[in-house]
């Protein structure tokens, strides 16, 4: 059996899901036996390659993310939403209850930590925020979901090892589902 | 007053009316009033006085005559000549020609602008000729503000009959025999409902008249209440006698101020003559009616929500059973019927259940009032025997499509109903036939649409209505209608995919099966029926969007 290709992606999230992924500790060796991690936030590389499995952390918050997730979907056989931000926008989405303009002004202009010359950053190289934050499944088709903030290392390892061994994971059956 | 005195009253009313050679009825239903009929009535009365005809001619306000978009309407009796769109400036001329010269003005007669030759006797016009009026029978002919006018046509004789010649069981048997079904929408057999309430033993029982007509485009109940309030009161009193209740409530929506005014006036008049109140017609039977005014929630037309509203609580429905017949208002057995149902009771008692049961179809007896609206030539209020086809209603009575457009669909039953496409124009308008097409009879709203109507948008419109009117108590209706509305909006703006349509259909089944009350369970109907008959309109929009995707 040829080794599978695995990628992990960090979109609009806090990287906590990736921390949890690292918490699988020595079990990473088992994963490494079955798959090559070809792209992740600490693997350098410009283009997102074709992969068997993509673990995506975080919600879609900007034009960059939108472009990225559409591309990732095309490149991945299996796309997994990793963590509450990807699945339900979670903390990232808490700005959705307000106008984007109000949110930005509150953060950059009105914030108590600002001196009186607060200013909204405006540079062409900066990404442009969407009006609303979206969970992945509202933008692309998602194959599996690992909820949790963060998901437990056990849950992540379970899903990965099932998929790498060509089995279908069921977090609920495995009693590893967790919201929040 | 006793039964004999009632006969005396009838004679008096007859005498009073006999002195007039002519009666001029000016439609003062809400529709005609808004086109200025009250001013017309005033001018006619002034004209009569000016000509010194006040002892020969009576000019009175009346209830709805039917062709509402032709108002203000003025009817001359006994000739039965109706003038349409009567202008205050023309009154002198009309009175002169109609009453003095006996040369009716053809150009001003009803439907004169669209018929080659209008009819002097309106009943010969196809609009009226093909109708059969029971609930609306006297609506355009009597003054709804005068009990004398109702007595003159034998009003309260059915109540007199049941009190002196019938046992409650016999009244119920007669209603059962008529095979009448509730006109509020669901079509539950009226007689059985009465029997159920009758059978529960309780010192207190209640009769409620549901006048919380909320369907967009429907005004059947309003017209009956405005045009013949005493008939409804008589029906309620008969029901009270039959089921053993002594208190009635007429629950009328606050948006019907005229109906409320007229029924309150009617109650006052009936009480004065002891036709309502304690010891009616000298018997042991007492029955009082109080008016309760709805505050604008559509859901209060649902019986359990209506009862909660009368009790002074938030108007939200509760699960049935227990049905109101067992535990209704203040936890007592309660009979709740629609305005139109009560309006049909007195004729059934007077002319017999047998007579009524022979009208209509085997499973749906009697007549049904429909409110014609939309792209139809003559919109307004009509009453036809059950089983009349949709084609007859739209093309024979309603005069066909406006501006000679092409018929596309008709929505029956309002936001709880469904649409009927052109291939089913020959459907019989009765409970079962409409149900088999995925629509319902509902309370009788009938909205006609031509080719310019977008059926996805129609579904979206009704879903928006249900979403706004959801009381918010149960989850399927509260959130489900919102989600369905948003999905429909997405389809309407060409942003939806096949997956969205699947979700929409799944939600529709869910809301239909899981909602707590009739508002929720019927909310998906417009969507489901447009999907059934016009699925290609949904799929076209989805295809258009999907083709644009990279």
């Amino acid at each position, binding site marked *: 059996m040829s080794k599978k290709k695995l990628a992990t992606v960090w979109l609009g999230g806090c990287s906590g899901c990736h921390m949890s992924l690292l918490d699988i500790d020595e079990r990473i060796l088992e994963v490494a036996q079955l798959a090559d991690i070809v792209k992740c936030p600490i693997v350098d590389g410009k283009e997102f390659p074709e992969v068997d499995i993509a673990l995506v952390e975080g919600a879609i918050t900007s034009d960059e993310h939108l472009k990225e997730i559409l591309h990732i979907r095309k490149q991945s056989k299996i796309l997994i939403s990793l963590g509450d931000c990807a699945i339900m926008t979670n903390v990232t989405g808490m700005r959705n209850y307000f106008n984007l303009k109000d949110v930005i002004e509150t953060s950059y202009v009105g914030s108590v930590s600002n001196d009186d010359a607060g200013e909204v950053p405006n540079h062409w190289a900066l990404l442009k925020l969407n009006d609303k934050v979206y969970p992945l499944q509202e933008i692309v088709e998602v194959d599996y979901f690992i909820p949790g903030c963060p998901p437990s290392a056990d849950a992540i390892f379970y899903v990965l090892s099932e998929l790498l061994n060509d089995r279908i994971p069921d977090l609920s059956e495995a009693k590893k*589902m967790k919201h929040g | 007053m006793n039964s004999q005195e009632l006969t005396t009253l009838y004679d008096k009313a007859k005498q009073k009316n006999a002195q007039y050679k002519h009666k001029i009825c000016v439609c003062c239903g809400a529709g005609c009033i808004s086109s200025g009929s009250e001013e017309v009535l005033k001018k006619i009365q002034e004209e009569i006085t000016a000509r010194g005809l006040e002892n020969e001619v009576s000019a009175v306000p009346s209830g709805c005559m039917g062709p509402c978009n032709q108002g203000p309407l003025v009817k001359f009796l006994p000739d039965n000549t109706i003038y349409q769109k009567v202008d205050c400036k023309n009154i002198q001329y009309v009175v002169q020609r109609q009453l003095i010269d006996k040369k009716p003005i053809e150009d001003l007669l009803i439907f004169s602008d669209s018929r080659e030759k209008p009819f002097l006797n309106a009943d010969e016009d196809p609009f009226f000729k093909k109708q059969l009026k029971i609930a609306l029978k006297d609506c355009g002919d009597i003054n709804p503000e005068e009990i004398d006018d109702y007595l003159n046509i034998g009003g309260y004789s059915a109540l007199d009959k049941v009190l002196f010649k019938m046992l409650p069981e016999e009244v119920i048997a007669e209603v059962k025999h008529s095979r009448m079904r509730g006109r509020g929408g669901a079509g539950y057999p009226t007689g059985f409902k009465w029997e159920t309430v009758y059978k529960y033993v309780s010192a207190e029982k209640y009769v409620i008249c549901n006048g919380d007509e909320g369907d967009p485009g429907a005004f059947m109940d309003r017209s009956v209440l405005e045009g013949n309030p005493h008939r409804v009161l008589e029906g309620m009193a008969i029901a009270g006698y039959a089921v053993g209740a002594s208190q009635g409530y007429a629950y009328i929506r606050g948006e019907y101020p005229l109906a409320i005014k007229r029924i309150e006036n009617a109650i006052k008049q009936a009480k004065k003559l002891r036709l309502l109140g304690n010891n009616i017609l000298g018997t042991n039977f007492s029955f009082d009616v109080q008016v309760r005014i709805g505050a604008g929630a559509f859901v209060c037309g649902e019986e359990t929500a209506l009862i909660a509203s009368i009790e002074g609580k*938030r108007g939200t429905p509760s699960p049935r059973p227990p049905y109101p017949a067992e535990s209704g208002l203040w936890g007592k057995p309660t009979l709740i019927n629609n305005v139109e149902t009560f309006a049909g009771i007195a004729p059934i008692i007077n002319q017999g259940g047998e007579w009524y049961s022979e009208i209509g179809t085997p499973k749906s007896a009697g007549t049904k009032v429909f409110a014609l609206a939309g792209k139809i030539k003559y919109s307004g209020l009509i009453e036809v025997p059950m089983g009349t086809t949709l084609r007859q209603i739209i093309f024979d009575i309603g005069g066909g499509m406006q501006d000679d457009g092409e018929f596309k669909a008709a929505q029956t039953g309002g936001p709880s109903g469904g649409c009927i496409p052109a291939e089913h124009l020959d459907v019989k308008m009765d409970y079962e036939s409409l149900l088999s097409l995925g629509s319902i009879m509902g309370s009788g709203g009938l909205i006609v649409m031509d080719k310019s109507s977008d059926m996805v948008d129609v579904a979206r419109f009704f879903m928006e209505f249900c979403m706004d009117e959801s009381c918010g108590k149960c989850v399927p209706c509260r959130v*489900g209608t919102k989600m369905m509305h948003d999905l429909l909006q997405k389809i309407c703006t060409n942003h939806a995919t096949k997956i969205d349509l699947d979700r929409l259909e799944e939600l529709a089944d869910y809301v239909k099966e899981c909602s707590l009350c009739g508002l929720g369970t019927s909310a998906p109907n417009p969507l489901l029926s447009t999907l059934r008959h016009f699925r290609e309109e949904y799929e076209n929009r989805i295809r258009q969007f999907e083709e644009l995707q990279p």
Partner: protein
Amino acid sequence: MSMTKLTLQIDGRSIETESGRTILEVCKENDITILTMCHLKGITDVGACRLCLVEIEGVSKLMSACTTKVADKMIIRTSTEKIKRYQRITTELFAAERNHVCSVCIANGHCELQKLAYDVKMDHIRYPYLFPQCEVDTSHPLYVLDHNRCIVCTRCVRVCAEVEGAYNWDVMNRGTNVRIISDFNTPWGESITCSDCGKCVEACPTGALWPKAVVQGQLNKAPEFISDLIEKRKMKL
């Protein structure tokens, strides 16, 4: 009311019970799981959450187990594929309607909605989140009302009226705009009816009502305390 013995079948099991009971009560006595959210033992059932819907043979509609009384020879099914599917949709709609951000919610780990999500195996929500802007009322000295987490089960409303007798809570508006209100929609801290008893807080299944004295992870509500209280009051010791 006299009780008569009756036999019925639930999920293929033959069960003997007495008349006057609800399907939900009989199921609980026989360890048959019925999911509920608006039900709280002891207070009036309203059949609002629609999670406890069951199929009854010969009845065309699904009936709420909490409000439907058992009858002799009733054949009831509580966990058909259809019912499970509908329970999951209901849960998804609950979660999509308001802002249930478990990770920052006071009730995280002690929340009936969260537990329900596990029961119906909900790993994601297929409908767009509504993200409504909701108020948080912190005006009461002891408690907080957070509309973001409210599922409008009205357990607080009923417990306040039926057990405490204070009638502080009610519901306003329609559709997804419904909100639980204190008095006539005034800040809870200004209530002239609230007795500060905290029963509503105990009765609340989510993090919509909570005591200011706790931090996340420490909140542990005891709605069964309300049910016990009602039982004890009946005994009039």
